[in-house]
């Protein structure tokens, strides 16, 4: 395997192919592999950053499976690169998507289909997870624990941990098996309808990305110096002008600016630099809000 080492430039010029060098389908994933990936899913947010969010951790948790499935080094490289892209879902529900995706990878589904399903599932499960765990499970188990803690009882924290993690780990393992079996079963149908499913998944995926653009990207001039004077009139740039034109105008404009720059072959690293500069300069001149005064 003396192929030369790929560099940043190669990544930028790479078009991930839809099909595989080695399209042979082999059933290689065992129960043990699935469980290995469940444990690894605990590192879902290990490389968290604002650009890709859980993309790195998502890939990290899939590695044992992907390594076994893609014995062709090129296929493995494209699969890893594909999975490293933006990803964000709820950490307690992620194993369900993992199970489905690993079943699809194992069956060598087209990369665009895998990608579409992955993106279409991540947003909805993220929303469900927030409501289910952060706003329901945590307050309930926390509340039970605190009622004991308030009396100085050490069983407060202990009971909290037991209750919380019983649900947590049961879900992680069960959802992985469930997802994998669902994926395997669904694939028989998908085989014949690859094109159609890829099309549908891309449609749903793009709708999700459109929704995420409006709700995830926070680009608003909420600083103290965000007022312009037009003649005698004072206008708030954000609430008076931009929001009047369209809500989330800046986020969608900036997403397409990024898309356009990337299409032109600019490096994403340049875009990160530009974004940092916008943030710092904007904050310095008072367009962006500063954190509260520390007393």
């Amino acid at each position: 395997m003396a192929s030369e080492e790929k560099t940043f430039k190669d990544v930028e010029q790479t078009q991930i192919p839809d099909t595989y060098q080695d399209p042979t389908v082999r059933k290689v994933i065992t129960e043990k592999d699935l469980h290995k990936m469940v444990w690894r899913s605990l590192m879902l947010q290990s490389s968290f950053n604002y650009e890709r969010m859980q993309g790195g951790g998502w890939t990290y948790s899939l590695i044992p499976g992907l390594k076994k499935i893609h014995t062709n080094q090129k296929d493995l490289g494209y699969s890893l690169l594909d999975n490293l892209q933006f990803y964000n879902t709820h950490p307690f529900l992620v194993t369900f998507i993992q199970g489905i995706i690993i079943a699809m990878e194992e069956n060598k589904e087209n990369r665009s289909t895998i990608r579409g399903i992955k993106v279409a599932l991540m947003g909805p499960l993220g929303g469900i997870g927030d409501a289910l765990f952060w706003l329901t499970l945590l307050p309930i188990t926390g509340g039970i624990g605190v009622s004991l803690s308030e009396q100085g009882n050490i069983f407060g924290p202990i009971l909290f941990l037991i209750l919380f993690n019983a649900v947590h780990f049961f879900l992680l393992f069960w959802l992985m098996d469930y997802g994998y079996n669902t994926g395997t079963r669904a694939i028989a149908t998908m085989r014949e309808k690859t094109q159609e499913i890829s099309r549908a998944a891309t449609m749903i995926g793009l709708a999700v990305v459109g929704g995420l653009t409006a709700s995830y990207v926070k680009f608003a001039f909420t600083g103290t110096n965000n007022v312009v004077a037009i003649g005698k009139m004072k206008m708030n740039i954000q609430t008076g002008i931009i929001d009047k034109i369209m809500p989330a105008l800046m986020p969608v404009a900036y997403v397409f600016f990024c898309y356009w720059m990337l299409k032109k072959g600019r490096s994403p690293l340049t875009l990160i630099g530009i974004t940092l500069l916008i943030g710092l300069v904007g904050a310095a001149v008072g367009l962006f809000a500063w954190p509260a005064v520390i007393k």
Partner: protein
Amino acid sequence: MHDVTIWQALLVGLWAGIAAIDQFNGLTHIHRPIVTGAVIGIILGQPTTGIITGGTLELVWAGMVPLAGAQPPNVVIGGVIGTLFAILSGLSPTTAVGVAVPFSVAVQALITLLFTGMAPVAHAMDVAGLNGDTKRLDWMAWIEPAILFVGFFIMGFLPALFGQNVITPVVKSIPRWILGGFQAAGGIMPAVGFGMLLKIMWKIEYAPFFVAGFIAAAYLHMEILPIALLAAAFAAYDYFANQNRKSSGGGGGQTVPAGPTTDDDEEDYSNGI
């Protein structure tokens, strides 16, 4: 009033570091104030005060959870510092909250900085990925947890060793515009990720779905789940409409356009006509 041994301070730092990892990885929730309070209390030899303070801080942070990736005031440092000062300065648990919150707001800004600064690492991972180098990806996954551990170790250790009077002015001296700048950049940053997704997925014929999803979220304030379900409904309609067109043999050249980057789909549909 302030007699923390260096060993105790080290243990506090160690716990802060472990909890810092758990708040993002593992998520066993040993990082919640209810647990941290008890642990810090045991380290400092006052378990009961620790447990009670932890309980109070837990309630304060009950509503402050990471929704849709937004970072609330940092819960780990809130639990550690709050319990620490409640025990060391004899503050009531509720007053300790008042001291802890500004610290956790400052630390939240630092986390924002970390999550912004980690973006280039993702691109180094791309290179490792394209090379199929899973070994490199495996160790790179520990970069951020390691930074979190060291950072929080220091932020637990120093306040434990020096106490509130020394630490508060340091926190205050960080220029606020820099914190604000990183926070703003962090908020905008997902746009770069979405730009990359669009570069892969975008096809002009699917643009209406992007627009519809955007409008549903921006104007109608819909959650992502109903947006995905609506899109699924339209995709299903599209699927059946194409099926009908295929079986009736009509449509002429209007065959189903396939998903992105497929070139040879004509063959698949020619036998339907």
